[in-house]
C-alpha cells in the first residue's frame, strides 16, 4: 500500500465529521489549550499549542467545507496543503502529542482536540508522514501479531515460569471462561509480575479466566499511527477469540491506549456492538474487592503515590477504582498535584514512546512528572499502565531520581490473603 499526498488529503476530507466541523467552527483561537499541553508547558514553545498541531487539517476543512473557503479555493486564493508542510507537521502531530486529552478538558468551547489529532493521524499515515519507528511497530503488529515482535511462544515461556513460581495453572484456550485476559507486549517483555499477580488473585477469588494464543496482545499500533483499517484488523483478533471462547468479558491489561482501543474505539471500528463486555483490570479488581472476593492483609508502610494513566483515567473513566484499591493496601497514600482526570501525562503515550526521534523531547517534558513526584515526597509510585511505567522509569533514571515504579495489580498481589 503506497502512501501519497492525494490519499492523505482524501483521508483528511473523510475524517472531518460533524464533531470536527463544529470544533473548528467553535475555536476562537484563545490559546488556552497551550497551557494544558505537556509539551508547551515544559518548553514554552508556541508551536506546541494543541490546536496549532491541526493547522493542515483545519485548512482542508475550511477549503472543502466552508462557503468562504470554497470561494477562496475557486479564486485560487487559498494555500493548498503540501507534502513539505506535512513533513514539517509530522513531529508536531506525532512526537509532541501523546493524545493525553488534557487540552480537551480545558477548551472553553468544548473542542475535543485529542479526537481531532487521532483523526488527523489518519491523513498523516495515509500520506506517508508517520514516524518510521511507528510504521515499523505497526508492520510488526500486523505481520507478527505484536508491535514488539513477540509471538505466542514468548508468552508460553512466561506461563511456564509463572506456573513454576506460583504452582497455579494458567488456563489457555478455556472454552466458556468468564474472562479473557489480554496482555501488552511491555508486560510480556518487562513485567512478568503482572501475569503472576493475576494468576494468584484470580485463583483466590475463584474467577474463571483464560488466555488465548491468537489474542494475547492488547496493544493496538493502528490507533497510534492513525490507521483505522489496521486498528480494525488488530481489534478483530480479540473479538474473534472472545467469540470463539464464548467469554463474558475481556480484560484490558495495565496499558493505557489498549483500553481506548478495545473499550472505546473497538465497537466503532468493528461497526457493531460487542457480544461481551470489556473492562480494565482495575475495574475487575475493584468489583472483586467490593464483593469481598479480593481479600488483602496488612498495609504497605512506604509512602505511595499514584500516577493516573491518561487513557485509563481521563480518556477512560477509571478514576475511583485505583483509589479504593490503594486505600485497602496503602498506609500512607499521597495524591500528587493535579492527580485524577487532570494528571500530567508520562510523556510517552500515543505512540511517542515507540518513536525514538521523540526521545529527547520526551525526557525534557518529564520535568513536570518530576515536580509532581517531588511534591509528594514519595519514593514509590504506583501506576496501571506498563507503557507509563517504562517511560517513567527512563525519565526517573535520566533525572537521577530514586523512585521505584510498580503496577497496582502486583502491589495488590503482594498483600493478598492466600490459601483460605
Amino acid at each position, binding site marked *: 500500500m503506497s502512501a501519497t499526498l492525494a490519499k492523505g488529503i482524501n483521508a483528511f476530507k473523510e475524517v472531518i465529521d*460533524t*464533531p470536527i466541523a*463544529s*470544533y473548528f*467552527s*467553535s*475555536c*476562537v*483561537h*484563545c*490559546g488556552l489549550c*497551550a497551557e494544558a499541553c505537556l509539551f*508547551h508547558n515544559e518548553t514554552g514553545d*508556541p*508551536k506546541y*499549542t494543541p*490546536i*496549532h498541531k491541526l493547522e493542515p487539517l483545519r485548512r482542508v476543512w475550511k477549503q472543502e467545507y*466552508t*462557503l*468562504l473557503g470554497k470561494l477562496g479555493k475557486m479564486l485560487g486564493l487559498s494555500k493548498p496543503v503540501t507534502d513539505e508542510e506535512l513533513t514539517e507537521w509530522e513531529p508536531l502531530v506525532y512526537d509532541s502529542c501523546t493524545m493525553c486529552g488534557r487540552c*480537551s*478538558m480545558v*477548551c472553553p*468551547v*468544548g*473542542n*475535543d482536540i485529542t*479526537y481531532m489529532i487521532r483523526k488527523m493521524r489518519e491523513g498523516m499515515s495515509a500520506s506517508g508522514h508517520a514516524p518510521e519507528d511507528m510504521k515499523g511497530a505497526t508492520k510488526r503488529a500486523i505481520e507478527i501479531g505484536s508491535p514488539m515482535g513477540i509471538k505466542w511462544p514468548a508468552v508460553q515461556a512466561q506461563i511456564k515460569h509463572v506456573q513454576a513460581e506460583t504452582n497455579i495453572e494458567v488456563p489457555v484456550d478455556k472454552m466458556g471462561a468468564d474472562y479473557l485476559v489480554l496482555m501488552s507486549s511491555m508486560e510480556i517483555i518487562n513485567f512478568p509480575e503482572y501475569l503472576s499477580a493475576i494468576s494468584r488473585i484470580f485463583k483466590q477469588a475463584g474467577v474463571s479466566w483464560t488466555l488465548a494464543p491468537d489474542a494475547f496482545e492488547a496493544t493496538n499500533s493502528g490507533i497510534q499511527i492513525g490507521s483505522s483499517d489496521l486498528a480494525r484488523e488488530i481489534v478483530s483478533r480479540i473479538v474473534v477469540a472472545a467469540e470463539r471462547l464464548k467469554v463474558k468479558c475481556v480484560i484490558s491489561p495495565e496499558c493505557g491506549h489498549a483500553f481506548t482501543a478495545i473499550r*472505546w474505539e473497538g465497537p466503532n471500528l468493528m461497526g457493531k456492538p460487542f457480544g461481551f463486555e470489556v473492562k480494565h483490570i482495575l475495574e475487575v479488581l475493584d468489583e472483586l474487592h467490593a464483593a469481598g472476593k479480593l481479600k488483602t492483609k496488612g498495609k504497605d508502610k512506604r509512602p505511595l503515590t499514584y500516577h493516573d494513566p491518561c487513557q485509563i*483515567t*481521563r*480518556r*477512560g*473513566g477509571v*478514576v475511583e477504582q485505583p483509589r479504593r484499591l490503594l486505600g485497602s493496601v496503602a498506609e500512607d497514600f499521597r495524591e500528587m498535584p493535579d492527580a485524577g*482526570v487532570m494528571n500530567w501525562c508520562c510523556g510517552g503515550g500515543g505512540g511517542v514512546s515507540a518513536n525514538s526521534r521523540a526521545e529527547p523531547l520526551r525526557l525534557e517534558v518529564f520535568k513536570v512528572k518530576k515536580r509532581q513526584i517531588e511534591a509528594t515526597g514519595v519514593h514509590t509510585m504506583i501506576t496501571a499502565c506498563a507503557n507509563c511505567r517504562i517511560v517513567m522509569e527512563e525519565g526517573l533514571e535520566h533525572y537521577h531520581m530514586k523512585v521505584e515504579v510498580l503496577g497496582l495489580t502486583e502491589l495488590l498481589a503482594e498483600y493478598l490473603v492466600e490459601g483460605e
Partner: protein
Amino acid sequence: MPSALVDASVVAAIVALFVLLAHRLNNPVKRMLSGFGDYLAWTVTLLPLLTGYMAYHHLMLEYTLMLSLHIFSVELLLVLLPFTKLFHTFSVFVSRWYNGDFYGRKGVAS
C-alpha cells in the same frame, strides 16, 4: 434599561475589547494562532458599540449619519457572523454537546 446603565455597559465592553486585543497581540501563542478572521471578528464586534456610543453622545459626525453608520455596522456584524469565528456563539453548543457526550459516556466529569 436606564440609559446610564447601557452607557456604562458599552464603555466597559469597549474597554474589554481593547484589553482582549492587547492580550491577543502580546501573548505569543495567541499572536501565532490569530489570523485575519480573528481581527475581522474583533472589528465588527467593536464597531456597533463604538458607533452607538458616539451617536448617542453626538460625537464626531452628525447624529443621523452616525446613526446610519451604527445600523450599518450592526448589519455587517449579522452578515459576517455565520462566516467568521463569531459563529462559535452557536456552534459552541454543538461542540460542548459532543465533548460532554464523549466524556459523560465514560463517566469523566469535564
